[in-house]
Each structure stands twice: as C-alpha cells, then as structure tokens.
C-alpha cells in the first residue's frame, strides 16, 4: 500500500478515536453540567403565553401564540426535504445558478481573490437561524468539504450572506500583533471593502481576539439598541501586514418588526416580577433592565409547562421585536441536590436566574433566557 494511501487510512481511524475520546470526556461532565446543558438547550428557542393587553388606552393585537410542539420522531417528517424541487424553484422565483456564481465572484474579487475558477455550485436548503428551510447557493472554488473558498448567496435576493476560507485554519500562520487602533482601522477598511453604505451599520466591537483570529462586528442600530439580527461579523488574521479573511457573516433579517415601544421600564419590570412570583417563592432582585431587540422564543413557556425534555422541540413564530429585557435573580439560592428531571425543573423554577423579554408594545412576555448562556 502506498505511503499516502496508508497514512490517509490510518489518519481516518486516529481522527475517529480522538473524536470518541473527546465525546467520552464530555459525557463524563454531564451529571455536573446537566443544569447548564439544559440551559443551553432552552436558550435556543421558546416562549410564554401571557395574554396581556397593554394597560393603557390602546389595545394591541397579541403577538404571542401557542407554540407548536414536536416529539423527536415527528421532527424528521416536519423538516422539509433537503432537495429543492423544480416546482419550488419556479414558485419561489429563485435566481439562476449562473447569476449566483457571478455574484459570488464579485464578492471574491472585492475580498482580493480575483475571479477564480468555481468548482462547485449547489442549491441547498437553509442552514441556520431564521433562514432555516429557505434556500441558498453554495459556491466553492474546490470540491472537498474543507477545501477552498466558499461563498453563500441567498437564492431569492442574491445577497451575499457568508464567506469562508476553509483552509486557513490548517495553515501554520503566525499572527502579526496589531494595536487597538489598527484593529479599528482594519474594521472600517473591511466595511468599505464589502461595499456597505456609510453609517448603514455601526461598529460595535473591533477588539475581539482569539489565539487564531481577530474579530469585529457591525450592527444596525434602532432606538439606541444594536440589532444583532442585522449585522456583519468578520474573523480575520493579519500575517506579514496583510489581512486574510477567515469568515464573514452577514445577517439580513426580514423578521425584525421595529414595533413601537409603548411600555415604560417600570411597567415592564412589574410584569417580569409578577411572572417570576408565579415560578418562585423566593425573594427576587432585579439585576438588569434594558431595551433590547430579541427573537421570540419559548424558554419560559417550556419551564412553566414542565416541558424540559431533549426529545421535545418547541417552535414559535419567527418574530424579532423591541423588548424590555429584565434579568431577575435570587439571593437565597439552594444548591441543587436532586436527581430526577422533575427535581431539576423545580430547582430551575425556584432558583435560576431568569431573563424575561417583555414586548415593548403589548407587554406580553415573548421569550426569555435561563441562567448563563452556554453555547453548544
């Protein structure tokens, strides 16, 4: 057997063994981390039914509806087919493959890669977040899954939504150290390179750094609040004075409603405190109150209704609203000593820190968060 063939075969096995080793380590942490893991699951998506009409002189239509609940076995039939049929293409009036390819090349040219040969174009079902189940074109300069440059183009609007240099992480490159001022400058240069209008997005952060990448983020701003659902995030390296892009994400949300903020901070606070009293007898303290832009979710609905189960998926409407975000915690927390899922749920209701999204117009609680955000 040739050396290359052998080493590839062996590497495949070694990679799997290392993956299994990591899996085993993570599984060992589960009993201690169970609360945090459950928190992570809930922070993804959920919602509450509190049919509140704003206590003023105007009645607003409720925004919250009873969410749809799917059990795991129902999920697969609920999810649309990954293939996009010809009928669907025609119905949805999608852009053609050739148009998508040219748009991707325009992006690559702007980023300094010229107009390379495109080796792969696929029309795929949506990839994440609010664009789930919608379609996009994936345009690549190489065929392998972790090879080449990749650009995603929205198949309806033709907008550029994502770029990745799939091979950058495998190159042993040493980052240049750059100053805070240089990072800010680069952030603005990237923004100009991408061709956005002046002041369309505002620079929110430019000082992010990991051991591999620098990062910056731009968002649109409404009522003094950054909308994280309409933004640009960039991860990049600087090597020998040159900026190399790792990933660029552009979030074009169609679901932000920019609803009128009719509720005062004090009114929102009161609504959150009343809800917390339904879940916990412990004395509450308000930790934070702020205006925010949040997606409707069903965290507290699930908590209230004891639907804490990894085999259940709870789906709310896809709506992004102006809310008052109120965080409530308790001084006299108990240490969790339970074992069963029911005991964990009860503990969470009574002790966990919760954040409520109180709709800025209707006063309904349209979502929330529990405890600390843990990314999966």
């Amino acid at each position, binding site marked *: 057997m040739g*050396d290359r063939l052998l080493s590839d075969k*062996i590497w495949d096995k070694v990679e799997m063994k290392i993956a299994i*080793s990591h899996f085993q380590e993570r*599984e060992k942490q589960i009993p201690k981390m169970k609360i945090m893991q459950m928190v992570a699951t809930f922070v993804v998506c959920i919602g509450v039914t509190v049919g509140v009409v704003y206590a003023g002189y105007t009645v607003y239509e409720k925004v919250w509806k009873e969410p749809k609940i799917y059990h795991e076995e129902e*999920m697969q039939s609920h999810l649309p087919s990954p293939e996009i049929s010809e009928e669907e293409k025609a119905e949805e009036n999608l852009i053609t493959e050739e148009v998508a390819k040219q748009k991707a090349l325009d992006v690559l040219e702007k980023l300094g890669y010229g107009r390379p040969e495109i080796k792969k174009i696929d029309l795929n079902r949506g990839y994440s977040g609010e664009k789930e189940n919608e379609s996009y074109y994936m345009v690549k300069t190489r065929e392998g899954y972790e090879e080449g440059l990749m650009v995603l183009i929205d198949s309806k609007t033709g907008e550029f939504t994502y770029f990745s240099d799939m091979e950058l992480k495998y190159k042993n490159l040493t980052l240049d150290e750059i100053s805070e001022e240089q990072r800010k400058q680069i952030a603005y240069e990237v923004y100009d390179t991408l061709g956005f209008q002046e002041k369309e997005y505002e620079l929110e952060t430019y000082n992010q750094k990991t051991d591999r990448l620098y990062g910056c983020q731009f968002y649109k701003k409404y009522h003094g609040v950054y909308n994280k659902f309409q933004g640009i995030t960039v991860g990049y390296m600087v090597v020998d004075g040159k900026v190399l892009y790792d990933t660029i994400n552009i979030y074009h949300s169609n679901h932000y409603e920019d609803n009128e903020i009719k509720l005062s901070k004090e009114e929102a606070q009161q609504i959150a405190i009343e809800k917390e009293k339904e879940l916990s007898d412990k004395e509450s303290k308000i930790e934070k109150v702020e205006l925010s832009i949040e997606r409707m979710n069903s965290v507290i609905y699930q908590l209230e209704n004891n639907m804490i189960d990894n085999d259940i998926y709870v789906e709310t409407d896809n709506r992004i609203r102006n809310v008052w975000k109120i965080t409530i915690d308790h001084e006299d927390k108990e240490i969790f000593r339970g074992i069963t899922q029911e005991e964990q749920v009860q503990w969470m209701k009574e002790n966990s820190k919760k954040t409520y999204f109180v709709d800025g117009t209707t006063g309904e609680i349209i979502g929330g968060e529990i405890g600390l955000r843990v990314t999966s």
Partner: protein
Amino acid sequence: MKTNHLIKMYIEKGQLDIKKIVEDYSGYVYTVVKNSVKGNLTQEDIEEIIADIFFVLWSNQEKLEIDKPLNAYLVGISRNLIKEKYRKNKITVSLEEQEGYLTDNRDISMICEQNEKMYFIEKALKSMKKIDMQIFKRYYYASQKVKEIAKELNISEMQVKTRLHRIRNKIKKEMKKGGYENGR
C-alpha cells in the same frame, strides 16, 4: 520516510501535531508492526494497532520528553499494544527485542479498558450514516459549533442537533450492551 525526528519538531502552539506525525510515520510504524507480528495478525488488525499507537501517543502527549526521538516512543507503544493484542487473541509468541526503544510507562490495563469502551463506541458509529460520522467528527474532533457544522454540511441546525442526540443515544445503547453502567 522520516524516522529520526525529535518530538519537539512536532509541537505546534503547545500541542502535538498528531496529523503530521501520522503522515510522516505511518509507513515506518507499519513496517515495525508488520515485522513484529510476522503474519500472526490480519491486515485489518495491523492497521487498527497502528491507529491505536498514534492514539496512545496523542493521549499521553503531556508525558512525552520532547527532546527524545519520536520513533523510540512509537516502537515502545507498538510493542505493548501488540503484546496486548496477542493476549486477547490468545496468541503465544516471543517478541524479538526492538533496538533502542523506550519503555512506555502507560498502564496497559488502562489502555485495554479504554480500547474496550472505544470498541463499543466505534461499533455504534460504524453502523451510522456517513453524514452522522461527519457530524460526530466535526463536533468532537474539530470542536466545531452546531452552527458551523450546519452551514458547512448544508443542513439545518435542528438537524445537526437531532443527529447528535441520536448518535449519543446509540452509543449509550451499545455501551450498555457491553456492560458499561448508564452507557458510560
């Protein structure tokens, strides 16, 4: 075929570059193992042992003396793993001395239990679809986030989560069959 590099040449940002080691040393280790077993093991067993050798090296990277030559460790580990394989397969053969090897201090029984658990997990994974294997490797080997996996495999985040959940359940079932309590 590289055979005499020091370990420190494969240290990158404090971590052992195991992929590079596999690329450079697979041929060498294959020769060592094949010569040692002299037809007593199948090709499949030999390849499995080779993969285990690199895995043991990776698992014990913090114990390695980086100024020592890599091949010495590889030969030492191979000796122990071949011995253990013979024991499992009930093969009685005397191993020839390997010139210049260092003794691997790792507790052999720990390797065995680890390998046994791995066996059940690998068994569970082998019967899975290719996409599930990809998701498993990306999540647990490459530590990719659900969002990244979803984007790069062109599926929804919910599908990634559903599949990961199923993979975990399947592994736990296989581990329970193997007598590991609570699937661990």
